[in-house]
């Protein structure tokens, strides 16, 4: 055990910090979940890519730096510390890319990864359907075999930033005789063009962060099948552990939130109920616990270990920590709690109310926390399924 960062890691941190300090927009960008904000975020992503900070842990040939996972964590800590914009490329680089690295053909890697990292081609996820949320295997969208490819028909929903992205990824039933997890195939499909209809859905905070996608006989060539036909479930699930356990929400984000909470407390300390001091301390300790838990996970992975069902613990932990941290912040604001962005008097431009609303999504997305707890109980603790 050595909890000092190596010289190489420290040097990398210093480089990241210097670049971010010089380049992060001084004024926060408008929300990346609105049309105007999205375009500005894409511009930022391009800048990040040019400086080779978009995907530091990827191989150099795809625009990365071949950085270690530990260095990636360091980058993330610095990224959030600097208050840099949220990542609109996130669903591509963190959700789809790991699957492409594992299951993609050379042609797919060459064609897809670099434009994804460079924010030239933007990706949305298309997992859920109106009647297939937690029970994803009950999905009903289909793909029909045709010359040179497939015809996709069905409806996907809760596609993150779907109204603004170019393509999406999701599962479709390719074997009409099959049931549940069998007979599904992982497709990359367009969000523009013939047969595609999009309807934006405003999220809880009012931003158009979601889209419903209606597909009516949309053609997808064979080259946009990821992994083997009828093996889609296995392909999709292979990387969910690293998503829940690591890439989706790295500790840097929550350390930055805890720091902002401490700053808010410092401003309000003489009017704050003593109970809130306890909440602030607890929020800080939780972020620390999450950080060191993750260092343990990353050490294990760097030494050849794997991340499995235990990643569900991570997801429950950070999502519930995030809600509680924001609740503490809003309690500190007193009756200003309700002041939304756009109010002249809203503390931190309304970031706490907005952040709180976003935090409330945490226990729902990437598999609800109820599903995660089932996974923990069944696959980690070995309790019976039925």
């Amino acid at each position, binding site marked *: *055990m*050595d*909890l*000092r*960062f*190596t010289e190489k*890691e420290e040097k990398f941190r210093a480089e990241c910090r210097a670049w971010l300090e010089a380049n992060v927009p001084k004024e926060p960008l408008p929300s990346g979940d609105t049309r105007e904000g999205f375009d500005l975020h894409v511009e930022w992503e391009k800048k990040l890519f040019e400086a080779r900070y978009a995907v530091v842990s990827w191989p150099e040939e795809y625009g990365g730096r071949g950085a270690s996972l*530990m260095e990636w964590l360091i980058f993330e800590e610095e990224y959030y510390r600097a208050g840099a914009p949220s990542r609109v490329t996130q669903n591509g680089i963190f959700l789809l890319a790991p699957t492409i690295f594992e299951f993609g053909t050379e042609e797919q890697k060459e064609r897809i990864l670099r434009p994804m990292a460079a924010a030239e081609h933007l990706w949305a996820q298309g997992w859920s359907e109106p009647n297939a949320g937690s029970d994803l295997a009950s999905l009903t969208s289909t793909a029909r075999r045709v010359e040179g490819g497939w015809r996709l028909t069905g409806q996907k929903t809760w596609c993150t930033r779907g109204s603004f992205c170019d393509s999406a990824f999701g599962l479709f039933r390719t074997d009409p005789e099959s049931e549940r997890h069998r007979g599904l195939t992982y497709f990359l499909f367009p969000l523009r063009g013939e047969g595609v209809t999009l309807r934006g859905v405003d999220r809880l905070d009012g931003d158009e962060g979601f889209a419903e996608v209606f597909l009516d006989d949309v053609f997808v060539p064979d080259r946009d099948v990821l992994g083997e036909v009828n093996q889609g479930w296995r392909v999709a699930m292979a990387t969910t552990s690293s998503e829940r356990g690591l890439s989706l929400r790295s500790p840097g984000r929550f350390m930055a939130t805890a720091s902002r909470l*401490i700053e808010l*407390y*410092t401003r309000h*300390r*003489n009017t*704050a109920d*003593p109970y809130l*001091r*306890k909440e*602030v*301390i*607890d929020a*800080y*300790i*939780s972020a*620390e*616990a*999450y950080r*060191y*838990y993750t*260092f*343990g996970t*990353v*050490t*294990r992975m760097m*030494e050849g270990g794997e991340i499995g069902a*235990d990643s569900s*613990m991570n997801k*429950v*932990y950070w999502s519930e920590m995030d809600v509680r941290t924001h609740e503490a912040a809003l309690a500190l604001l007193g009756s200003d709690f309700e002041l939304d962005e756009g109010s002249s008097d809203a503390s931190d431009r309304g970031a706490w109310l907005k952040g709180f609303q976003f935090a409330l999504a945490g226990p729902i997305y990437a598999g609800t926390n*109820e599903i*995660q*707890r*089932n996974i*923990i*109980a*069944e696959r*980690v*603790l*070995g*309790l*019976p*399924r*039925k």
Partner: protein
Amino acid sequence: MRFAFTEDQQMLRDTVREVLARECTPDVVRRAWEAQDQGEKKAEGPFQTLAETGLLGMMLSEEAGGLGMNEVDAALSIEAAGYAALPEPLIETLASIRVLESRLKGDGVELLSQIAAGEARLSLALDVGGVVPFAETAVLFIVFADGRLSLNRREEVELDVQVSGDRTRSVARLRGLKAPGIELGRGEEAVTLRAAIFDRAALGSALFLNGLARKMLELAVEYAKDRVQFGKPIGAQQAVKHHLANALIALEFSKPLAYRAAWTLAENEPDYPVHVSMAKLRASEAARTIAKLSLQVHGAIGYTIEHDLHLFMKRAWALTAAYGTEDFHRARVGRAILPEQGDKNG
């Protein structure tokens, strides 16, 4: 940054686990409980075997017959002792043996080997009027009183026997000293030495609590798999699953804080008290939570002393308050990261 234990550290843990699985079964813990109730002296047992493996003296220097090891080397072993609810002053011994080595001279040095051999049990009275654990069997006491830190033999201390909710702890209150004993430090030095022992005992308690919590969770998991109601194991019910998942999460996010604190102590990092406090606070909270959840999953059988759960639960309760309560440790973290309330500066 490498946050993992070495193979040697894990092997030592495995040895401790094996010894305790054999010699410190719940029945053995229960006998320690009953012996205490009946005023019997404790029989020889796992503590001596652990001493033979070198565990008690591992942190002594090689010249003093130890292995020159540190808090990180010992961490997993203390956790393993917690898992077995070892009814012996392991936390106290490991927390103080190196301070003793640095202070004892001449005849006193012989005491070190007796402590390391498990022949002379040692307890701590670090707070005036505080509760002294394992007072019944300890023959040596480190006492902090009147600005002095001293090592006293049993006949030199005035003990007032109390009854712990966990009978195996055989607690007493220290009323005073009958003789000065061996002085370990005085004035500021005494405060510093006391703090060094206190923080190591707090860390030891955190690790021990995590071990107890693991055991309480496993008892509940096994029970949930075996106990059939409505024609299926209760562990197939989501409500029960979620209790147990919550218990595991509480434990798994407590452990890294304890390991980090162990490292900061081993490296003598200046801010180690804050890390110890985070570790002890979260371990206490996790153990309390897991005790409640485990009891709930067990139902009525868990609410008896016929079942083993109470052996682990009551030790956990006692340790949550030993070497700094949750409020003490939270306040210490607070002072490190937040300005005080009412402070107009800054």
